[in-house]
């Protein structure tokens, strides 16, 4: 069984007959490895594999794990951009490995893959998600209402429903929060994802907890830390206009209208 090494050439299979017709290319994946059971130091490791460039980066990671190095560790589940497990830094940009096709990355050059930033790396591409989920829980991410519940559904006009549609798409993958320079420097900052989820309720016409959530976000670790760099919007694999949502929360704090 081949042991992965930092040398690049020794792992590529021999081209077979008819290879010219094959959709496969040879691509190098340069992966940031870290396992404190083995070493306190993180290091880059190159893997060269034959792969169809129409496949996902997640497929490449699986190919490496399943055929070359079983110790390569990452989270994944649904493999099509819905579960939010596999956010990682691919060529310096936060993306979901299952929504990034290799052909869209220029496989001529090594493709770098590392854990998302700002959260403690536990092993290879796996980070500690607990601070991220804590910030989410801190904004009271649930519908708050007063008085008796109606017998049937609460009414909501299609326009009122549309008002917060964008922020309901969040899959809590942390791509936005871990792309934010403010969050990198200060883990106390709520981060974009928590604010997105606060937005989802503040602008829901059925909700009556907006004032409470705004006060939470008025905190010194709240929305005012945002420096509007748009990294979060660029990183969001669901296409949520994250920065705009944060701006709307800031505006609501000033005008107290939402």
């Amino acid at each position, binding site marked *: 069984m081949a042991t992965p090494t930092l040398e690049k050439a020794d792992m590529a299979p021999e081209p077979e007959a008819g290879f010219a017709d094959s959709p496969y290319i040879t691509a190098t994946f340069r992966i940031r490895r870290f396992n404190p059971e083995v070493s306190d130091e993180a290091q880059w490791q190159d893997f060269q594999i034959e792969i169809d460039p129409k496949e996902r980066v997640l497929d490449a990671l699986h190919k490496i794990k399943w055929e070359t190095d079983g110790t390569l560790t990452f989270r994944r589940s649904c493999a099509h951009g*819905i579960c939010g497990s596999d956010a990682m830094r691919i060529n310096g940009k936060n993306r979901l490995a299952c929504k990034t096709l290799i052909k869209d990355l220029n496989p001529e050059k090594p493709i770098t893959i590392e854990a998302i930033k700002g959260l403690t790396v536990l092993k290879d591409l796996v980070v500690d998600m607990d601070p991220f989920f804590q910030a989410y829980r801190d904004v009271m991410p649930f519908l708050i209402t007063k008085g008796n519940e109606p017998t049937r*559904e609460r009414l909501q006009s*299609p326009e009122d429903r549309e008002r917060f549609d964008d922020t309901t798409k969040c899959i809590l993958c942390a791509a936005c929060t871990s792309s934010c320079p403010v969050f990198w420097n200060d883990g106390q900052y709520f981060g974009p994802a928590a604010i997105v989820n606060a937005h989802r309720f503040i602008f829901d016409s059925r909700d009556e907890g907006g004032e409470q959530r705004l006060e939470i976000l008025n905190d010194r670790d709240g929305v005012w830390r945002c420096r509007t760099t748009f990294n979060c919007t660029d990183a969001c694999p669901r296409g949520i206009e994250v920065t705009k949502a944060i701006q709307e929360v800031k505006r609501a704090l000033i005008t107290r209208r939402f």
Partner: protein
Amino acid sequence: MQIHKYDTVIVGAGGAGMRAAIESTKRSRTAVLTKLYPTRSHTGAAQGGMAAALANVEEDNWEWHTFDTIKGGDYLVDQDAAEILAKEAIDAVLDLEKMGLPFGRTPEGKIDQRRFGGHSRNHGEAPVRRACYSGDRTGHMILQTLYQNCVKEGVEFFNEFYVLDQLVVEEDGVKKSAGVVAYELATGEIHVFQAKSVIYASGGTGKFFKVTSNAHTLTGDGQAACYRRGLPLEDMEFFQFHPTGIWRMGILLTEGARGEGGILRNKDGERFMEKYAPVMKDLASRDVVSRSIYTEIREGRGCGPEGDHVYLDLTHLPPEQLDAKLPDITEFARTYLGIEPYTDPIPIQPTAHYAMGGIPTNVEGEVLADNTTVVPGLYAAGEVACVSVHGANRLGTNSLLDINVFGRRSGIAAAEYSSKNDFLELPENPAQMVIDQVERLRNSTGTERVSAIRLELQECMDANVMVFRTEQTIKTAVDKIAELRKRYLDVSVQDKGRRFNTDLLEAIELGNLLDLAEVMATSALARKESRGGHYREDYPNRDDVNFMRHTMAYREVADDGTESIRLDYKPVVQTRYQPMERKY
């Protein structure tokens, strides 16, 4: 090893597990164990809707929904359970709305509804708008809403804990549940959870197929844990193949696309479903549509150079409608196929989607040890379970409904059981089986690779027990699975560590898949008829005389250690509907 004590332990944090947790946390000290994080579960991948006869947009009632569910399941549905499902659907949807779920709305502000396969007005007259939805991410919104309410209720989660064994003790000849054994991914530590009641809500088994809409993590862990402890599995031969998976990848494209007016076409551009289902057309039940697609392909009318797929055509729908109602699936087509659905049809093929069978339960979610005996303290809900509300074929939108109705019921029932009963004494060395299993794999020097065996299993299942089956193909699968199970004993892992050892867990998951694939193929071989998702070319008709009954598969271990599967059968509960010929 750590030992924890909770009144109620829930295994799995998808829709069924979290719906159960919201109820049981209010009533008992509850722990939820999930091998992922709560919002990672595959409920989030469900797209099109959740059925309930709200009659918000046209006349409808729960009795029509009950009939459609029973007919959709090809009369293998337990009719008392289907009636509960359809009746409680209305409150299940309203409960979710009150919890905050952002449903699509009518101009009057009520919950909007759309058409879906097999759901009809007045017993099959015409399609009816019964599916409540939130764009094409209804499952995502249900999962998020349930997690939000778990946060609100303070539900206690153990994230990335893999339940590997169900503790069963026998008292006076009755099997009872004493708790579960779990493996903590982060540390490799083994945890015993002593619990008065346990609810399995750990999802399906789709990863024994290659082309599947299922997540990598859907490996039948709950079914396997119970089965290995001598509990039966019901109707495992019934697996649903969703008609519209993305060609070769299997990623789900919702039936809601056809509910919104999408049309299936063959290479000649023909709307072929008109031939097979003159009334419901593209909205016939999933088993019917999947067989029709493969019939077109087999008869040379498939698309592409290899003629191995057909098209889902949305090009006649206004782009605004696609953007508003189907934004996610149109984006999938752009991302994974480079196709613009406004202007080009999408290549699709049937994809392995849903296990109708599973751990047998009654309508309270109590697990059965045989045809009638309840296992005290043990519950199951959602895809892992078989109530059976889906029979031989599940209707679209009835799974999101199932997890809410039976998740809630099992959460209440389990917590009430916990409040009235004491902890059972744990068996001696409760974690021994798991420790042995983990250490054997970690220390194995065998030459077989997990990924190779898994791929061979998946290819074998795709080739032999998918939409069309014969005695010959099923026997081929049975033999191949037996060979793979033998080779599995010689499997080894490369990662020998304790920290986040996903290499090891994948090996354990493969063991589960192999056990369950064997049960599925063995059950399918014995069912010499065609019904719902189980289609035998050598027995193309439904045989109500011999097979109007549920399969019950038991693992038997002989004195010399030889394992075998014993099949038994359980009667179907029939109340008001007599079986009829099934036409759409």
